[in-house]
Structure formats: C-alpha cells, structure tokens
C-alpha cells in the first residue's frame, strides 16, 4: 500500500481478493452450510442462526454508516439509532399492511392497534405503505430528509463536537417519546409485530429468512464499497482534513457545511436501509429502538472494531453483538460485567480498535485511520 491515497492501491487486487473472499464466505458458504450440510454435523448452520447472522449484518451496516461520519468526518452522532429505527418503521408499516384481514380483529382497513384505539380510517401518513416500492422509497427518504434538515440547521450554525452529539441525542430521545405515544399512530410501546409475509413470501419460512439474509449481505457489500469509494475520493480527504482542522479547511475554500451535510445525509440513508432489513428478520419494531442507549452502543461497536477503518466498523458490530448474544445466554447474571469491562479495556488498551491493533501488529499501514485526533 505505497503512495497512500493516490487512487491506485485502494482498489488494488489485494483489496478485491479480500473483499470477494468475505462475500463468498457470507453469501455462498453460509447458505451451503445451512441448506445442504446435514443439521447434526458440527459445521452446519441451523435455521435459527440465519436471521441472527442477518441481524448482525444489519448492525454492521449501521456501524458502517456511523463510522463514515464519525471516523472520517469527526461527527459523532449519538442519535443514529433514530435513522435506523425510522427506516425500520417504514418497513414495519409495509409489513403491517400486508397482514390485511389476518389480524386479531380482522379489520381489512386498519391495523389492530388502530382498531383498539377506535380509529375510523387510516391516517394520511400510512397511505401508500401497501406498496413495497413506496415503502422502499420512504426507507431512504424519511431518514434522509430528517438528516438533511437537522444537519443543515446544525452544520450551518457550526454546532460541533459534544454539542452536536448531545443534540443528536436529544433528537432521538424526542422521537422515542413521540413514538411511545399511542396517539401517534405507530403502535405505541408495542410497536409493530406479528408480520405475516413480505412480497408474498411467508416470513416464517426458513428460505424467506435466508433470502433476507442474502439481501443483507448484498446491502452490506454495496454499502461498504460506497463508503470506500467516498473515503478514497478527494472528498474523503477533505473530510479527514476537516475532522482534524475544520477552520483550516474553510480557509482553503471548501464548504465544510456542504461536505458534512452530504455524508451525514448519506449515512442516515444507509442507517435507514439497515433498519429496514433488520425489522423483517427480528420480527418487531418498537420505540425502544430510539432509546439513546442504543445509539451510544453503535458508537461502541465502531470504536471496538476500530474507528476510522470501514472494516473495523463491521468487525466491531459483529463481534460485540456476538459477545452479547453469547453472554446473555451463557452468563445471564454477569454478562454486563464482561461487556462493560470489554468497553473499558478496548478504549484503554487498544484505542484504535481491533483492526487498528491488527494493522499495527502486521505490515498493513493504516490508511488515514490513525492517529486519531484529540476529540472533536
């Protein structure tokens, strides 16, 4: 990786080899182990693991979206869970409409929770969610627009660092309270669940789940390439530059506001997509996804994996959630100790995360990742 960032090595054969390898493992090996390896064999991946893996991939995409703005542009959003949840809700609304008359009250016009709140007709913001295309459009649009408006307000008036982090947190907190309200028309605390099928495929069928999983793989792969393209471009270097010395970039004549706004919005859309893929695989969306704690956790995945390295975000998200899944089952009484300790230790011992550590340990030169600047 010589001649850093001058366009060659970033897309070099070394990269493609690794990338294809990962994709093959995820998109080919896993299905084979799931479908054709006899379930009793040691390497078999039972059906119940598939949606779990799919969930990790969604989290990975979410972490990726945060790393793009935090690791590269120095914008720590503590409200990124909000974009994830909004994407999820858009998908959830579509899935609710698919239930049709199979609900508890069998009402052809309204979802159950509206029936029980005595609503007479479908509120306007639910129109169109019977159509998948509309839902997909919303998955990108709703988080994107929110990010655009919020970002425009914040970046234009140069809200930075902690102030930005805290108001993003305020944003997701406000959204959480709003979605908890039953009168909002999004199912209140119960959120939306008991989905039946998506595009006509039964969500309870293992094959549907495998399909969703593969879509998640594709989304993550595409998201990764996109982020890599951005960070490798000149814009990527502008972002790094403004992460380290914002006003200096202004004196060079770049519009910091626009650059930030661009990646922030893009990142929000990615988060929304992650959320949309997450919902059908876990089978429920509800307001606790908006809780500030969740958003902080995303930041933790990123820093565990290695902030400022795209692969780090993915690795971090997967590992932390694997640990969580495992510990909540294996050590239900003490897992918080372990997880807490993990976070403390990573920040103290490997400030650049796992990938950062590996990079240092091996010949790989960190590309524009380290050293991280003092906090923004």
């Amino acid at each position, binding site marked *: *990786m010589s001649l850093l960032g001058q366009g060659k090595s970033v897309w070099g054969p070394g*990269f493609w080899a690794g990338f294809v390898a*990962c994709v093959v493992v995820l998109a080919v090996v896993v299905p084979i182990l799931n479908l054709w390896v006899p379930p009793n064999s040691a390497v078999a991946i039972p059906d119940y693991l598939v949606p779990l893996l799919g969930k990790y991939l969604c989290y990975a995409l979410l972490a990726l979206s945060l790393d793009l703005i935090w690791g590269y542009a120095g914008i720590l959003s503590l409200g990124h869970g909000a974009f994830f949840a909004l994407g999820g809700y858009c998908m959830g609304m579509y899935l609710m409409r698919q239930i049709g008359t199979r609900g508890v009250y069998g009402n052809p016009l309204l979802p159950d929770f509206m029936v029980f709140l005595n609503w007479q007709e479908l509120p306007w913001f639910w129109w169109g969610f019977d159509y998948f295309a509309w839902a997909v459009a919303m998955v990108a649009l709703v988080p994107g627009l929110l990010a655009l408006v919020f970002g425009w307000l914040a970046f234009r008036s140069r809200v930075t660092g902690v102030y930005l982090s805290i108001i993003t947190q305020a944003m997701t907190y406000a959204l959480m309270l709003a979605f908890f309200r039953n009168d909002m028309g999004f199912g209140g605390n119960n959120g939306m669940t008991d989905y039946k099928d998506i595009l006509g495929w039964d969500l309870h069928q293992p094959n549907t789940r495998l399909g969703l999983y593969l879509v998640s793989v594709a989304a993550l792969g595409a998201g990764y390439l996109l982020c890599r393209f951005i960070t490798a471009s000149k814009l990527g270097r502008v972002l790094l530059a403004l992460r380290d010395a914002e006003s200096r970039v202004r004196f060079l004549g770049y519009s910091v506001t626009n650059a930030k706004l661009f990646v922030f919005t893009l990142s929000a859309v990615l988060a929304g997509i992650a959320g949309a893929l997450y919902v059908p695989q876990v089978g429920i969306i509800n307001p606790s996804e908006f809780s500030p704690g969740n958003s902080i956790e995303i930041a933790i995945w990123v820093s565990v994996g290695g902030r400022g390295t795209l692969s780090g975000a993915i690795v971090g998200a997967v590992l932390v959630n694997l640990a969580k899944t495992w510990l909540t089952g294996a050590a*239900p009484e003490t897992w918080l100790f372990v997880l807490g300790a993990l976070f403390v230790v990573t920040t103290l011992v490997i400030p650049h995360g796992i990938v950062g550590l590996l990079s240092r340990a091996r010949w790989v030169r960190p590309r524009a990742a380290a050293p991280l600047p003092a906090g923004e």
Partner: protein
Amino acid sequence: MLKTTWYAVVTAAALASAPLAATAQTAGTIKIGVLHSLSGTMAISETTLKDTILMMVDDINKKGGLLGKKVEAVVVDPASNWPLFAEKARDLLSKDKVAVVFGCWTSVSRKSVLPVFEELNGLLFYPVQYEGEESSNNVFYTGAAPNQQAIPAVEYLMSPEGGSAKRWVLEGTDYVYPRTTNKILEAFLKAKGVAPEDIKINYTPFGHSDWQTEVAAIKSFASAGKKTAVVSTINGDANVPFYKELANAGIKASDIPVVAFSVGEEELAGIDTKNLVGHLAAWNYFQSVKNPTNEAFIKQWHDFIKNPKRVTNDPMEAHYIGFKMWAHAVEQAGTTDVDAVRQAVYGQKVKAPSGFVEIMNTNHHLSKPVMIGEIQGNGQFDIVWQTKDTIKADAWSPYLAEDKGKVADWSFPWVCGNCTSPRYTD
C-alpha cells in the same frame, strides 16, 4: 488491510460456532426455559419471577424430578429489550430444545415472542395480569384478565363498602395494558350510568418521575363534591414517585382512594407505606392470605431465597400455579411433547396459595378469585373484600364492541382462540 477484515471475520466465525452451535440435548434431563429480564428496566420485577421458577425446579428435583428425569432450567437474559425476547425465545426453542418456557412480563415482550412460539409450536406460561384480547394455542395465561381484576375492583369502589365513589380518575402509563383496561372500564362505568364528565383519563410516559402536576390535577378533579376514586394502571418504576407525591400532598385514602392493578407486595417493598394506609390494590393473591398452602409457599420462598424479609406476590403465585399445572400435565401425558402436554393442561386443578382451587380453562386462562387489599403500614395488604368463588377469565371483553361474538375455546368443536363460529360443525 482487507486481510485484517478477513482474519477478523474468521475469528468471528470461530467465536460464533463455539457457543452457538453448542446444541447438547443431554439425555436424562428435561430442559425448561426461563425468559425473564435480569437487567434493564424490567429487571426490577422480573428477576423475582426467575427465582420463583428456579425454586419450583429445585423443589421438583428434590422430589425426584419429572418422568424420572431431572428438570434443568435454562436461564437467559433478554435484558428488557423486546427484539431480544424474540431472539432468545427462538434460541430456547430451537437450540436448547426446551419443553416449555416460563417468562415475559410486559405485553410487548409477549407480543414479540408470540409469533416465535406459534411458528415453532412452543409452550409459554405467562404469569402477569394483562389486557386480555388474546388467546394463543401456544400460551397459557396464568395472570388475571381484566374481568378478574379491573371490573371487580371498580365495583367494590362503587359499593357503599368501598365508599360509593361517583367520580373516577383513570390514571395510567401510556401503553397497551392501561389503554385497554381503561377502555373497558370506561365502557363499564358508562354502562353503570357514570356521566362522561365524571371520568378523567390521563396517560403519562414510562418511568414518569415528576407527579406534581398530575397529583394536583387529581386533587382539583376530586374537589367537585362527589366522592372520587383513582384507578391506577401506572407501570412499575413510575409508582414510587407517584405514591410519594400522593402521600406528601396529603391525599388520604379516606378522601380519594387509589386502587392499583400493578402494585403488589414487591412494589410496596420499595415504598414507605406509612402514609399510604388505606389505598387499595386488586389482585388474585396477597401474601397476607391466611391458609396452609400459602404458609407453605411463603416458607418455601424464604428458604430458597435465604432472606425472610422477601415478600411473595401475585405473579409469583401465578408462576407457582403454572409450573405445577405443567408438571402435572407432563406426568399425565407421560411426555413433554407440546401437543400432548397442552391437552393435559386443560382442566388441571391446583390448590393455589390464594386458598382456592384454580383450574385451567380451554381458553388458556385460569379461573381465579379476586381480592381487594388495603395497603398497611408494614408494606402488606389487608384483604377487605374478596369473591366468594373463582371467576373464569374472559379473553375477550363483553364491554368492547370489536370483541362482539368472539370466543376463545381450544376444545372441540371451536378449537380457536379468536373465532365467532366453531371451526368444526360436529
């Protein structure tokens, strides 16, 4: 550096396969799942229920286990995170192959695991009073339905005995249980001729901690001359600040009685009750019930938890009943196969700590007695009123228009939890 990712992914896969692929179905043991939050907001209430099941398992193993096998409890922590509930349920059923799951507290957690249990044909015992409007073939509801708690409580407050209340505040946390309960109560009160302007419904967010405004509002609503009562469906955490405010604002039970549906001995243990004496709660069991079964139950609990100060409460009793019924059913069916056990659970009778023989009906709900207790200074309840006999739960409320004609009956010819006509015609 992509190599680094590559290596990381491999390590991840390795890590994953270790714990996740461990599907050891050890012979000679019957596994049961315990799905209660041990961390997060709901840990406050649910941890006790986890211990209750462990106590029952401990007990049954002492007595030689089930079908000659030891019973092994698989405890997991869904961490008050609703999607995680679904995920853990799937784990328990698919990975650990548990015969039955005891778990959930909040409605949303139940709603979140329901599809999983139905898909994998698992069995869930749900021990908490809830809003009804549900009867799944894969869930046994051992807590109270609205007609076993809310309606009797309100009837009591209307009676001269209860102070013949004429004006009502329905105070609740904004989620489905209070919403449904209050909806039923509103319909019920109107049916009883209460004027709409004499009913005040208010919802607050979870963990609402500043009750000044609301308590003041209740006070002024109550000052209209008519006898006023408060029906509280306030959820867990928010209760302590609510009662502290209530007590300090000098609202006496003799002026404005408050009857709560989510406040039991466990919750009272977190409140100084000296100034709350006389406020009420409606349950199907109180620790202060006097009968041998209950004394044995309490003793068993204190011995197990090794702390004579710990209290028992209604959901614990529900788990006690549920576990016994399941165990009896397994003995009868001679297997842990879900379909066989389910059939055997119908009509199971258990002499409950409440002092009544409680029976599981074919609508998957119990027949339970209803008791009204007055809070005492020592954190216990005085039972001031109780039903002569047990009451059968209505899964669907006769007071709700949308429930018209709905029947929950999983026996022939209905075989359905949500139908207006039998599935089979003889």
